[in-house]
Structures are given as C-alpha cells and as structure tokens.
C-alpha cells in the first residue's frame, strides 16, 4: 500500500537490531490512517450511535494505538503482535454489539485481522452437555472466528464456580490458549454487565491478563434515549406527531426507573408495541366509519399509542423489556 512507499526505514529489520534503528527515520502516520480509511469507520460510529461519548473516545484511542503500533512495526520498533483482546462492559442495549462490528472493521482496515467478520456467541455455543463435547464445540467456534472477531456475550456464564464439574472451565482454557497462540488470527471481545465481568476476571486471572482493552458502556441519558427513539422511528418510516414526541419523553422517564431496563433495546420494544397500538387504532377506526386512511395516518404514531403502555399504570408494573 501507498503508506509503505513513504516508509524510509528498513522495515525488515528484526527487533534485535532495534538499537540500530535510526531515530531520524520517518514513517507517514497520516498515510496509514488515510489509506486504511479508518476515520470513515469512526465517523460512521459517531453518526449511527447516539451519545456514548466515552466509548467513542476509547475507540478512537484504540484506533490511534493500532495505527501507531503499525507505524512502529513498519520501522522495526515492534516485533510481537500486540494483544488486542477486549472487554466491553455495560448494561444491555448500550451498543456493545454495534461497536464490536465497527471495531472488527477498524481492526481489519488496519491489518490486524484478515477478514473482519464477527462471530457472536454465548455460553451455549461454546460449552457442551457431556464429557468430550465442549472442546469440539469451542474449537468449531474458534475456527469460524479465525480471521475476524469472536464476540462472547455475557462471557461470565462460562464460569460457574458453584458447579465444580462445569464444562465452562474447559472452554475457557481452550479460549485462553488460542487467545495467546493465535494473536494474528483472531481478536476476542468479551461482553457483559460491568460488575459480573469484574467478578469473572477476579476468578479467572488468566483471562483478565490477556485482555488489553477495557471499554465501559454507560447507560444512556433520557435525552439520548429520546433521540434514539427518534432515529428508530424514522428508520421504520414512521413519525411522532408533536404530542407523541412528548409522550415518548414521559415514557422514557418512567421506564428508566423500572426494573429490567435495557436502554436502546427497551426503546425499540416500546416502539414496536406503539406500532401495534397504532394499527389497532386505525383498524378500530374502520369499524367506526373511517374506512379510508391516508399514507400520513399509516405512518403517524400519536400520543395515545404510547400513553396506553402499562408503564403508566403503576410505578412498579413494568412494560416488558
């Protein structure tokens, strides 16, 4: 690639000759960033995810680190591949999966993984039911993830200290081995709740020591969730009327305080139910002598579609997430 042409150092120098690398030699870092189009991915992340400022900052930091590491490698300053395994912590619906997809793309564009696909799994995909079942299952998943990113959601379920014969431990050991030996071949991202992840790491120091980057995903604020709702509604080709917009705000206020809140996921579920109620409202209208509906009617969610939610019934009877 073009960046290589600008590299003036002998890039094939082995690390043992590091001392002989001329400090004055230069590498065009900007070209590495430009040619990999990595900023495009970062911008996309900015656009498609509302809020999450600290996450976006972390991802930019990691991207910068990856680009610099590549530049260092070009100049012979870096020999062993960096450990790139990550941990994304945060509550459900805070964008971990989406960010993992973008992360895979960044890793791919900067040349850290060859294919850039994401294989997303949970404990059930890795751990078997009987003796001899787990290793092939875990290996099968690892083989499919090679060249890309293995995203393990709720990774702490792999470890069940209450059952000493749990096969999860076997899976963890295989994972660890591959995370160590196949750094060039895949990046593992563990994901889950912050506190449970910490517990998991404290009982699995081997895993903890192999995770180079921790990214914490904060919950969304009320205005962010409302903005997310707006984006989702227009992506579905619907819109809020003025009252509905306000009702959605109330809804989020209430829902935030109730159990099982899952951030963007709860917003999406609420909207799905609002669409059901809207359909029901239009349908009832036909019976009530309003047989013709306009395109506008078909795509407008009104306040009543939202305010009918059970969230408003009682302070503690939650709309299901």
């Amino acid at each position, binding site marked *: 690639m073009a960046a290589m042409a600008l590299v003036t150092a002998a890039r094939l120098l082995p690390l043992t000759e590091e001392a002989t690398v001329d400090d004055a030699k230069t590498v065009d870092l900007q070209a590495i960033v430009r040619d990999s189009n990595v900023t495009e991915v970062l911008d996309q992340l900015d656009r498609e995810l509302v809020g999450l400022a600290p996450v976006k900052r972390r991802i930019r930091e990691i991207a910068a680190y990856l680009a610099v590491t590549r530049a260092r490698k070009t100049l012979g300053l870096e020999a062993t591949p960096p450990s790139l395994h990550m941990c994304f912590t945060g509550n459900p619906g805070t964008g971990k999966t989406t960010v993992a997809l973008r992360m895979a793309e960044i890793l791919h564009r900067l040349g850290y993984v060859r294919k850039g696909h994401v294989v997303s799994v949970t404990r059930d995909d890795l751990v078997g039911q009987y003796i001899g079942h787990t290793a092939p299952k875990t*290996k099968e998943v690892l083989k499919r993830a090679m060249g890309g990113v293995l995203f393990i959601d709720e990774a702490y379920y792999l470890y069940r200290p209450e059952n000493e014969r749990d096969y999860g431990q076997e899976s963890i050991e295989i994972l660890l081995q*591959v995370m160590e030996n196949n750094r060039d071949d895949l990046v593992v991202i563990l994901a889950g709740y912050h506190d449970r992840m910490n517990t998991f790491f404290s009982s699995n120091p081997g895993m903890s020591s192999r995770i180079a980057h921790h990214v914490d995903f904060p919950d969304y604020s009320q205005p962010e969730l409302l903005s997310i709702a707006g984006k989702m509604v227009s992506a579905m080709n619907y819109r809020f009327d003025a009252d509905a917009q306000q009702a959605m705000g109330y809804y989020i206020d209430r829902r935030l305080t109730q159990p099982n809140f899952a951030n963007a996921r709860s917003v999406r579920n609420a909207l799905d139910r609002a669409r059901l109620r809207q359909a029901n409202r239009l349908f009832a209208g036909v019976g009530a002598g309003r047989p013709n509906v306009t395109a506008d009617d078909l795509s407008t969610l009104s306040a009543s579609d939202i305010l009918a939610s059970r969230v408003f019934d009682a302070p503690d009877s939650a709309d299901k997430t």
Partner: protein
Amino acid sequence: MMTNTNQRLTQGQFSFLPDLTDTQITAQLDYALKNGWAIGVEYTDDPHPRNTYWEMFGNPMFDLKDAAGALMEINSARKTFPNQYIRVTAFDATRGVESPTMSYIVNRPAKEPGFGLVRQEVDGRAIRYTIHSYATDKPESERY
C-alpha cells in the same frame, strides 16, 4: 523403503513437490475457502491406494472464513499423530460435483515402507494382483 522417484507415497495433489510449509498450506486452504468448499483433515496408518476411508480428525469444517482455523486443526492432527499420514481434503457441495475437489498430504511417517505386490498365478499366464501395505503387517496404531 520406497524406490520411486521421491521415495515416498505419491497420493494427493502435491506429493511430487517438497513438503508444503504452513504458509503454502494456508494458501491452498484459502483457495478452497474462496471456492466455498468445506475442509476435512484425515489421517491413517494404512495408506493402501484403495483405503478410501482414512480416519476423520473431526468432521469436515464448514463455514470457515479464514484458513487459520483449518491450519490449527491440521497442526493439532500433526501433534496427535506425528507418525501417520495426514491429508487435507476439500469438498464441493455443488450439484454435479458433490465430491472431493482437493486432496493433499500434509504429514508423513518418518519412514515410508511402501507396498509389496503379491502375485497369484492363475489360469494361463494370467495373474491376480494384490497390493500389500507393509505397514499393515503390524497391528493398528503400532505401525511406523
């Protein structure tokens, strides 16, 4: 010891070339994956030319995106059976093929004893031929 050109079993696509390096194997695996073929790893201690069913080192691998997964399996097979024949087979599921499309050896025993030809003289000048794998004179898993 075998006395043919390379003094070795010449089954497979690349037996006349020097042993494949992991980099070369990776390139061949990539070729198979690019064509959408599944990859199987098989091993045997009886390389008779009509021993069709070598043991499978796990099921063929479907849905791989990258060669590293298959290479990991190959290396794991080599570690488990360092002194047996190991071959990589690619399978094409396309209608009209539905059969292997690649096959090459990636591991061999240190010594390849080869085969003898047993001739049974029958009517006239005719002979019934049997190819005998010297390795099979010993019981399974004690050969090589």
